[in-house]
């Protein structure tokens, strides 16, 4: 590259010509305390809550506490260079993050700075991190389905666009997998996905990003990551930053899926900084406004009215329980804020039922309206059937003297559980889901050995795709269940040719 001295000096000349000496007026304060991601400062008499401040070493902070003598500041970034006696300046701005299409496919930190080494984010648009949620008249009830591609969720606890569905369970029960699979299934669905990793191991986030990239999902996904080695304010801020990025798309009429993985770590980070700011601790030492912290975040997920473009933001917050205890403080809070929860059970997970969704305690309060007609018909009684099977199952272990009806119920139940199992990263289209659930509820699987169910399913899909394509096309286009005689005929002709594995008998 040759340096054109002429050109450069012309540019500098231009810059200098436009330069005007201005009197630099700054409102300042003095740092009196620094520690663990927060600082206190004297002065700053006119500082506003939530305002961005600049420390003398260039690090930014956000005003959290306004007290009679000083202000409590959370530091966004490295606080090693800040000392007692340093000057803090007001900036007059509030905390904002870059938003827009340029972020898609990127991995950023909660301040919107790139973490993936792909250079600066080319966008001029920003949005405030904290933003008021849409009000009553700006919303519309949830009506479009969000297909997760996971049979157990789409059939039992359907999620609609604009809904907030909590994913809750112990550690290592497959919570993140549900998020990743759901994101993978949004390919070509005109959705933008945001995965907010809060306090997740950097290596784990790396793996997730790699998975998304491998399946081509990074083309419509933004990853916001605040690792465990970041100071607590970054973890606290991450979901709000993610929500701001999602809102930009939502208010432009697009559909957004945002995953907060997970909010219990965010609550812990907020507890940490609240305690250092000397806010009084409440239950489990969480501050008094921990409920508001989560409610104002999740309330920003919405289905907007047609006047506002009809965009939506679906939130999938995660909460980690300890030993399945859903009555702890944070789980109960978030359960009451969200429109339903998917409960993942450690025992199911370990016994091989994956995804380990507990049908009894999982609910969706609004998603049913968003389910397509065909799915509603085939999955209508599935939840109850499954619940009664689980109940019977424990009895059945005592003996085999059961009447015919009970035995049939048990056989059906075992097959239902088997059908709802799904391997990693293989989301299913809704028409195929309807197909297999139809086969299940209409008794076509009753004669198939349990161990052969998965194979039966896969081969059924292939068979339908090559012989009765019009059925799946009809479900996809009309959202209605095709004529039952045709369905029966198609599945029957396949079932007759299905060869069970010999050993499985």
């Amino acid at each position, binding site marked *: 590259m040759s340096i054109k001295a002429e050109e450069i000096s012309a540019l*500098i000349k231009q*810059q200098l010509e436009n330069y005007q*000496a201005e009197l*630099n007026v700054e*409102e300042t*304060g003095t740092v009196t305390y620094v520690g663990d991601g927060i600082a206190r400062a004297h002065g*700053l*008499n006119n500082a506003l809550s939530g305002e961005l401040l600049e420390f003398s070493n260039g690090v930014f902070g956000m005003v959290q506490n306004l007290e009679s003598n000083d202000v409590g500041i959370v530091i966004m970034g490295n606080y090693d260079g800040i000392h007692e006696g340093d000057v803090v300046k007001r900036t007059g701005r509030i905390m904002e993050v870059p938003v827009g299409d340029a972020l898609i496919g990127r991995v950023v930190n909660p301040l919107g700075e790139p973490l993936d080494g792909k250079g600066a984010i080319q966008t001029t648009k920003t949005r405030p991190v904290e933003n008021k949620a849409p009000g009553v008249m700006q919303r519309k009830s949830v009506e479009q389905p969000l297909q997760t591609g996971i049979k157990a969720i789409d059939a039992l606890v359907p999620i609609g666009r604009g809904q907030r569905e909590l994913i809750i369970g112990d550690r290592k029960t497959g919570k993140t997998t549900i998020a990743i699979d759901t994101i993978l299934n949004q390919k070509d669905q005109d959705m933008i996905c945001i995965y907010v990793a809060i306090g997740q191991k950097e290596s784990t986030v790396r793996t997730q990003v790699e998975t998304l990239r491998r399946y081509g999902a990074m083309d419509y996904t933004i990853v916001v990551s605040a690792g465990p080695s970041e100071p607590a304010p970054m973890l606290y801020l991450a979901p709000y930053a993610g929500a701001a990025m999602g809102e930009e798309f939502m208010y432009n009429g697009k559909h957004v899926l945002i995953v907060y993985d997970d909010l219990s770590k965010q609550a812990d980070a907020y507890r940490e900084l609240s305690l250092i700011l000397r806010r009084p601790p409440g239950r489990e030492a969480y501050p008094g406004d921990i409920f508001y912290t989560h409610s104002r975040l999740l309330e920003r997920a919405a289905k907007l009215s047609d006047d506002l473009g009809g965009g939506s933001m679906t939130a999938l917050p995660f909460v980690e329980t300890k030993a399945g205890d859903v009555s702890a403080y944070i789980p109960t809070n978030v359960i009451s804020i969200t429109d339903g929860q998917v409960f993942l059970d450690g025992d199911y997970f370990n016994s091989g039922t994956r995804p380990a969704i507990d049908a009894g305690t999982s609910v969706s309060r609004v998603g049913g309206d968003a389910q397509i007609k065909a799915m509603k018909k085939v999955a209508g009684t599935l939840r109850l059937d499954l619940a009664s099977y689980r109940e019977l199952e424990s009895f059945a272990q005592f003996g085999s003297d059961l009447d015919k009806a009970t035995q049939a119920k048990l056989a059906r139940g075992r097959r239902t559980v088997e059908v709802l199992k799904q391997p990693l990263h293989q989301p299913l289209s809704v028409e195929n889901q309807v197909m297999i659930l139809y086969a299940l509820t209409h008794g076509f699987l009753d004669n198939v050995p349990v161990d052969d169910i998965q194979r039966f399913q896969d081969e059924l899909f292939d068979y339908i795709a090559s012989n009765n394509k019009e059925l799946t096309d009809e479900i996809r286009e009309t959202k209605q269940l095709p004529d039952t005689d045709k369905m029966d005929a198609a599945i029957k002709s396949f079932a007759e040719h299905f060869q069970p594995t010999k050993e499985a008998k």
Partner: protein
Amino acid sequence: MSLDKTTIAKRYSKALFEIVSEKGQRDETRAELNQIQQVFNDNEGLGKILTDKGLEQNQKLEILNILTKDASNYVGNLIKMTFDYGRMDYLIAIIDEFNNLCDADEKIVRAKVVSAIPLSDQQLDKMAEQFAKRLKVSEVVLDSEVDDSIIGGAIIKTDSLIYDGSIQTQINQIRQRLIG
């Protein structure tokens, strides 16, 4: 949770300020308090030994007598009261806070001027006058300081505001502009 120093100082000084303003003895009180502050500044640790348990009560009272001997009624009472409540440590903060209250009431702002060359009294007066107009206060008391690292111009610092018209800052701004 015990109250912090500033909160306590504000309470004591506000009470004192109100009572002396009512009686019209503000200026005398202020002058007297500043003398006492001087005593405390000259004898480092005086506040501390009067607060902690190192000395016998009657020894402390002797020191207290010296302090209050020539004091006016209100100042004497203030010292005795702060002693009784074990707040002698905070006396300097209380006096500072009292001075702030007086300044705020009389609309006086104290500021520090930093310039590259020493300023004449005339220049300072003019500056104070202009600055007072800008801040909409009746008087600005300037404290001058010379620092040649700012190259030229001047910086005025008050409690929480910095008016920076120095060449150094302007050069920095140009640098920012050229880099960014």
